[in-house]
């Protein structure tokens, strides 16, 4: 178990390191970093001051050491707009995104398990058709457009929901519905596929022959084994959820890390962008570890095979 975890941590640490180094390389090796951090109309004097203050005239290795030290202390410099530490801004925005993403994921998983099981039990039934349709939609409809259609219908035409903001429960409906489409579309197919193969296993026949009800067979015998494949995909999906969150937060004015990123790009605030990107990378790293842990706990077969 511990060996397995250590292996997984090392293999997920690699992307994190690559991202950290990559951001440094992009910022320093492509021309003058001062032009990245400072506004476009900065004077030469401002640029020179900035270069000296930030130690950008030091040798590259010294800069690199400084940068890594900063990353370890979560110190990414100060925002141009507000003068606040960039990391503080990113950390303040982070909970909003986390709430949104976690709620979406929980609803998507529960819905996918229910619809997926139903679809597996009744092939070509209503649930099967719904799940096929949603999966197709998830692969074809751009999320930003879906959000806009949602706003157009429910906020502007019908006036039922607010167009943006975080006040009140109604404000959550459109962002979550938009963000949910893709994870639900993928998960429902996976749950369905895993359930179909789990239901044809001998132990299901045994359970049935012992007189277990349909509901009990599904919830106690099949679902437990079908959950593992769904969980492996969850990692990829959460990575994808970050992409969706950037779009959804921008459209609905959600004060999360995705909106912070886009705002800092449009206002050329590189320190904040860097902080937001790196903190997201760290969050993804932690999440991947948690998913691996959950996978190992769920599927007893994983432990011995990985150890061996």
């Amino acid at each position: 178990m511990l060996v397995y975890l250590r292996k997984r941590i090392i293999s997920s640490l690699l992307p994190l390191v690559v991202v950290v180094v990559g951001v440094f390389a992009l910022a320093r090796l492509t021309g003058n970093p001062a032009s990245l951090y400072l506004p476009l109309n900065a004077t030469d004097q401002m640029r020179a001051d900035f270069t000296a203050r930030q130690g950008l005239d030091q040798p590259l290795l010294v800069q690199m050491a400084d940068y890594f030290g900063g990353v370890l202390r979560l110190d990414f410099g100060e925002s141009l707009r507000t003068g606040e530490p960039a990391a503080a801004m990113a950390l303040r925005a982070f909970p909003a995104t986390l709430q949104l993403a976690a709620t979406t994921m929980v609803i998507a998983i529960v819905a996918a398990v229910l619809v997926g099981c139903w679809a597996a039990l009744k092939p070509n039934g209503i649930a099967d058709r719904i799940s096929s349709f949603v999966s197709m939609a998830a692969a074809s409809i751009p999320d930003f457009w879906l959000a806009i259609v949602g706003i157009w219908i429910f906020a502007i035409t019908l006036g039922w929901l607010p167009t943006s903001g975080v006040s009140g429960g109604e404000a959550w409906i459109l962002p979550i519905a938009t963000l949910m489409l893709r994870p639900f579309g993928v998960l429902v197919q996976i749950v369905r596929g895993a359930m179909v193969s789990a239901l044809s296993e001998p132990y299901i026949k045994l359970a049935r022959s012992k007189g277990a009800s349909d509901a009990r067979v599904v919830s106690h015998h099949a679902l437990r084994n079908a959950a593992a494949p769904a969980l492996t995909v969850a990692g990829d999906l959460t990575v994808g959820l970050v992409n969706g969150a950037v779009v959804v937060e921008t459209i609905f004015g959600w004060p999360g890390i995705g909106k912070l990123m886009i705002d800092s790009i449009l206002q050329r605030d590189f320190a904040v962008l860097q902080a937001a990107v790196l903190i997201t990378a760290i969050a993804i790293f932690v999440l991947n570890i948690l998913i691996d842990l959950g996978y190992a706990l769920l599927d007893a077969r994983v432990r011995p095979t990985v150890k061996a």
Partner: protein
Amino acid sequence: MATPLLQPEGHQHPETDPPAPATAPAADVPPVPAPTAQDLGDKKLSLFRLLLRDKFATLAALVLVFVGLVAVFGPMLVGDLATRQDLLAANKPPFSLEDGWGYVLGSDSLGRSMLGRLVIATRTTISVALPAVGIALVIGSLWGVWAGYHRGLRETISMRIADVIMSFPSLLLAVVVLYVFNPSLGNIILILAITRIPIYLRTARAESAELQSRTFVDAARTFGSRPTAIIGRHVIPIVLPTLLTLATLEFCYVMLAESSLSFLGIGIQSPDVSWGLMVSQGRQYLQTAWWLSIFPGLAIVITTIAANILAAWLRIATDPAQRWRLSLPRTRGGRRFGTALKGATK
């Protein structure tokens, strides 16, 4: 955006693959690529006939051909319609022929024709998506086939690189890169291609790793063919259908990614126009002129659905073990659509 609905390694050819291209030589002649021009012609013809039997796949192919034709010839036909401003004709609602066909889809707040702008945007959108898919396909496939054929360290390192790229949200990568470098057409194509290379890399590696232990590859090796020759003559022809199917599906993904970037303001920049950018520009007029956002989005949706259906059909049609499904007499209209849908999402 999630990795589109497919399991890169999942699609393995069953044992019934056509071993035809290479098993033939029993004499001491080095193996010759077996499918002659005649064979290929026949195969194409039958594939075309198969396509016509499936009305949804045919429709999807027609939609894609239409989009392609619009991208190539459309800008010539609309002329300056897309850029001509006419404040008297501002915010015309769609589906009215009062001002002629140019304004059939309405106009924007500057009185530019929606139809004209959509046509111009088609060319931009396609001219980002096609090169990006092409570059990723060529690099990812060759790299993957090479890694899978040689196994060992080369394979491990390649897969690690793929893992690193895949485990980071592609949009964030694009965001940082397009901030540092300016978002020109070339940079957008490049970043989209780089983030999608791992998909082909993984698939090609899995297939080629399985193929390199087959008898006909062994035979070629025994006769002294060099690895590059074996890869080119025996491995690639067999892997190619799978990769082309994947590329059709990837076309959707890349198009969606480009529109997201353009929508967020870090993709295609004004005065150029792409479908994603049009949705974004129309967003502020949602209350008064809904058609400005809805139509370009609809264009994206229709094109991606068509590519998805075609990819699902291609997957079955190019797989000899499954092709018989397509030649069955049709039972009910909804059925075929159902299989296509499921194929698209597996």
